[in-house]
């Protein structure tokens, strides 16, 4: 019976996530258009809601081109690694508190592993493989350069990402994500307890997602399209989706670690039955994630791109020392308060 519940959870979460990722493309196009004083796609369905379906259908029907002398197996494998990693990371993120349905007490998290945050850090490290293999296997200059730069950037910011998380783990006392969320009840969100950790984590997350201002590896004017230049049709669709899935996962992670997860302040004071409280908490979580995704999108159209040497400079000479200092200060404060 437990197995059936887990399978149902997996199917639901996957469907919802893929749906949200597809509609994030529409959200980005409408927000970008709004910032640029124009309207985005609003013709295809009501207000453009069928546009992602049209895009997916177009990509499915395109011709699939593989460059000659490319390593075919790895060329096919790379987008699968990218998207697979992005989708599996969602397994440990808690969506809500426990919910009681039909007499079964269900935890709203697919896998409650006791290493929690380490699982996510490990998987995002695997994500680098997707890019590097994509660029290398394409047998072409621009993808190779893009892939090399991108992997160097991702590796250097993974360090500060991991170190920022240690601050949160010290405050919560556990690696498990649901413990971290439960410690943020009421207004004790980690963003107030760990502001420096929040800033370094967000910057590192932007660099991990290859998203402006750190998007030199796939910057259109610089490198044609970076590591996914030689990809067409559905494989390009997979890369495109994996970029937005990474955005969703990073937002979900930041919400869980710093913005209080599924807690909705003052909710319990209304005295609603438990079932509805859980549903509202899940909706609250999704709202926070979508707001953060909108923030990521707006930042893309606000800040100019960093040059590659400025990027690496920032990662090694600034982010890393600041993250380490953050850990030291947090540990000192916790020790003093004991």
């Amino acid at each position, binding site marked *: 019976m437990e197995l059936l519940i887990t399978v149902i959870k997996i199917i639901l979460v996957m469907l919802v996530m893929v749906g949200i990722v597809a509609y994030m493309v529409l959200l980005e196009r409408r*927000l970008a258009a*709004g*910032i*640029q*004083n*124009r*309207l985005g796609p609003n013709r295809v369905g009501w207000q453009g809601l069928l546009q992602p379906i049209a895009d997916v259908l177009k990509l499915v029907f395109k011709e699939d081109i593989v460059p000659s002398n490319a390593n075919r197996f790895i060329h096919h494998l790379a987008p699968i690694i990218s998207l697979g990693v992005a989708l599996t990371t969602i397994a440990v993120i808690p969506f809500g508190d426990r919910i009681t349905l039909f007499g079964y007490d269900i935890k709203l998290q697919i896998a409650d592993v006791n290493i929690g945050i380490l699982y996510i850090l490990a998987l995002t490290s695997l994500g680098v493989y997707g890019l590097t293999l994509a660029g290398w296997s394409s047998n072409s200059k621009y993808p190779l350069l893009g892939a090399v730069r991108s992997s160097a950037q991702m590796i250097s910011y993974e360090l500060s990402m991991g170190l920022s998380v240690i601050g949160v783990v010290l405050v919560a006392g556990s690696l498990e994500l649901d413990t971290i969320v439960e410690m943020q009840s009421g207004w004790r969100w980690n963003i107030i307890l760990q502001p420096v950790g929040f800033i370094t984590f967000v910057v590192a997350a932007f660099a991990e997602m290859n998203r402006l201002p750190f998007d030199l590896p796939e910057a259109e004017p610089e490198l044609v399209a970076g590591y996914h230049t030689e990809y067409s049709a559905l494989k390009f669709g997979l890369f495109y989706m994996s970029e937005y899935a990474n955005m969703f996962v990073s937002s979900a992670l930041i919400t869980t670690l710093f913005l209080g997860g599924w807690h909705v302040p003052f909710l319990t004071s209304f005295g609603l039955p438990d079932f509805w409280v859980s549903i509202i908490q899940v909706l609250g979580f999704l709202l926070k994630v979508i707001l953060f995704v909108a923030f990521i999108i*707006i930042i893309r159209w*606000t800040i100019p791109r960093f040059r590659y040497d400025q990027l690496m400079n920032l990662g090694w000479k600034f982010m890393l020392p600041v993250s380490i200092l953050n850990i030291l200060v947090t540990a000192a404060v916790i020790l003093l308060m004991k």
Partner: protein
Amino acid sequence: MKQKPIVHRKDLHWWEWLYIPQIIAGMKITISQIFRPKFTMQYPEEKWTPPPSFRGSPVLVEENGIERCVACGLCSRVCPALAIEVQASETDFRKERYPVLFEINMLRCIYCGFCEEVCPEEAIVMSQEYELTFTAQEDGIFGKDKLLQSADKLRERLEFLRKNR
């Protein structure tokens, strides 16, 4: 060689060096743009009406049931794209000449307005239409029947031409 002037980079205040205040100031501007009104016209539902000075597709002016054209052939001679073909013939009206065949090949027309400028009778003017579509190349050759438009509809253009010739 002249010495280039040395420009000293302004030292950044620590608040500016952190970059985060600039990010927030930038975001204020971009987010405020989202709430401004947009000027995009939703095309098939809202169409743009051009001002009288707009040069659309050429049409023959019709007054009292007949065309004003006397088939002098000047428009045909001046057309840079060789899009107009005129064939004259006799008539009993006061003007004595009329075009028995008047064809403009809309696929060749470049909408320059020379024919309208050279016409001595104000018989051919550039209308306000800009949406010509057809599905076969033969349909692009407009005869007299498709080109005649009454002078009331073209009044604004005719007045504009009188004032600004």
